């Protein structure tokens, strides 16, 4: 039987499975691939009345406009600063937490710790920022109350002053996601064989040494995969939280690419310009991801694809 005939028989026998796939294909096609077609307007002078095809071509005009706006370097710098800060703080902490939780012998307490540390993940961005604004508020907020006990002034405007913006953004993210992001490492750690630990112990390794030489090598592949995925997002600081934390005082440090895209596109209706910035952002992210993945494949033999 030829290969093609085999395939045809399989396709015929499993036609129902294609039907199963149909809803997902339609969904992905509509909400993922159809917008990609719309990327054409990044190279056009788009006006709604003329439509995507009818609007005149503009070449690279919108990209050069973006590169030459006075705010270009500021926005790029803010985006990089926030995402690198998040990466440096937010990447190792879940690993440390997972290693510590993994070391708890009391099962009940272990479960309690996990449940508690996951909880903030379920809080919405709006509520998180709302909580920050009440807890950190200058006079009535409890953080300022506690700080005044410790000798602080008690009226620091954490949510307003721009010098606090990055810390507030990054550390609230750590607070919210640290527990959740540790699940994946805890899962990987449950796969470490107890015999390996036992053997290391007999050889005289103490707890710290066992973590360094048994646990960490075991979760290294997971760490690398997550690091690659994080690096692929280095230019995509999400708009959801930044937008809520923004105010007139802190925009010089808080304007990132995604919020700028939103403002240009939907608030000022500069569709082509906004799309071009989005495309630029996307392409850079994609290139970084592919590069980091390639390096990782070469160096460690682990990669995303």
């Amino acid at each position, binding site marked *: 039987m030829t290969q093609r005939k085999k395939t045809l028989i*399989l*396709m015929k026998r*499993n036609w129902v*499975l*294609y039907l*199963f796939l149909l*809803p*997902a*294909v339609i*969904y*992905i096609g509509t*909400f*993922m691939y*159809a*917008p*990609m*077609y*719309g*990327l054409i*307007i990044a190279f056009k002078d788009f006006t709604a009345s003329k439509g995507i095809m009818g609007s005149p071509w503009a070449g690279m005009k919108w990209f050069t406009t973006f590169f030459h706006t006075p705010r270009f370097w500021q926005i790029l710098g803010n985006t990089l600063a926030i995402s690198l800060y998040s990466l440096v703080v937010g990447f190792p902490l879940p690993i440390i937490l997972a290693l*510590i939780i993994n070391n*708890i*012998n009391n099962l009940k307490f272990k479960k309690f*710790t996990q449940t*508690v*540390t996951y*909880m903030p993940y*379920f*809080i*919405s*961005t*709006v*509520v998180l920022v*709302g*909580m920050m604004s*009440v*807890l950190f508020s200058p*006079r*009535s907020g*409890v953080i300022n*109350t506690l700080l005044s006990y410790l000798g602080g002034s*008690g009226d620091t405007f954490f949510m307003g002053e721009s010098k606090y913006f990055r810390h507030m953004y990054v550390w609230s993210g750590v607070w919210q996601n640290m*527990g959740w992001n540790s*699940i994946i490492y*805890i*899962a990987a750690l449950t796969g470490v064989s107890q015999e390996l630990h036992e053997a290391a112990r007999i050889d005289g390794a*103490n*707890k710290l040494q066992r973590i360094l030489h048994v646990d960490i090598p075991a979760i290294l592949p*997971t760490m690398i*995969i997550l690091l690659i995925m994080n690096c692929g997002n280095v230019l995509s600081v999400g*708009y959801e939280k930044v937008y*809520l934390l923004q105010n007139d005082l802190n925009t010089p440090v808080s304007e990132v690419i995604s919020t700028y*895209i939103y403002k240009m*596109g*939907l608030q000022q209706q500069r*569709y082509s310009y906004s*799309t071009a910035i*989005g495309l630029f952002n*996307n392409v850079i992210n994609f290139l970084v*991801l592919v590069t980091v993945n390639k390096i990782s494949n070469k160096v460690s033999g682990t990669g995303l694809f």
Partner: protein
Amino acid sequence: MKKRSKMQVSWDDRVFDIVTWAFLLFFIVIVMYPLYFVVIASFSDPMYVNNGQLVFLPKGITLMGYRRVFMDKRILSGYLNTLIYTGCGTVFGVCVTMLAGYSLSRKDLPGRNIIMMLFVFTMYFSGGMIPMYLVVKSLNLVNTRLLMVLLGSVSVYNIIITRSFLAGNMSDDLLDAARIDGCGNARFFVSIVLPLSKAIVAVIALYIAVVHWNSYFNAMIFMTDEGKYPLQLYLREILLSATTTINTTTETDPEAAMRLQQMGQVIKYGVIVVSTVPIICVYPFVQKYFVKGVMIGSVKG
């Protein structure tokens, strides 16, 4: 495990234990305290809350804040809308994800790798905000409840997790046996696959529900009719606007208006509790499936 604790513990292990316990307690306090504070503040007298006199215990316990919260029509309408969007969106999303995940888990399906690649590509590359807006607009879905149900319901990540789970848990022998008995693909899926996939259904249902419950940006972009706003959009108004905009009745009496102004903070705490408790309560029910579900997703990424 028991034996180990009876054995002599070396001093470096003891130091290690002390340090990790200190870390752990610190983590737990940092995570718990803000949540605890929100709860006690929501039950406390506005006077103490506004003056920052509240630290560890509630003071002047009262339900005034909650009474105001439940009198606010926007909260009720937002709650109802969010329940509809979350409920329908989760059911829809779980169905689409299970069907697609199962098909893609079958090794005897020609073309499954191509479809998988097309799906995965969208995780790393997308059209962006404006093209998305134009698509939604051309489909006449702007300001419709249907859009709120659809957006965020299907994610490639969930399809991958489901596929990996089913590929690992459904043996080929099972399928062969069923086929000999004359069981087709559709019946196999309904009567064999689904009953064996409770864990993965629970996990992806939770993922989808959390996304729906918590998202605000899509609604902010696409919804213009306030009656269709989800809870999060109202919360944004209440929690993040400079003045207390909670308006249950239009107060004409200046003294009453003053009191309302004073209650602003307590109302905010109450709103936070009311909007967050339902989604947090879902998690313990699903917890037992969790580590397993997440692990599957991670291994095959």
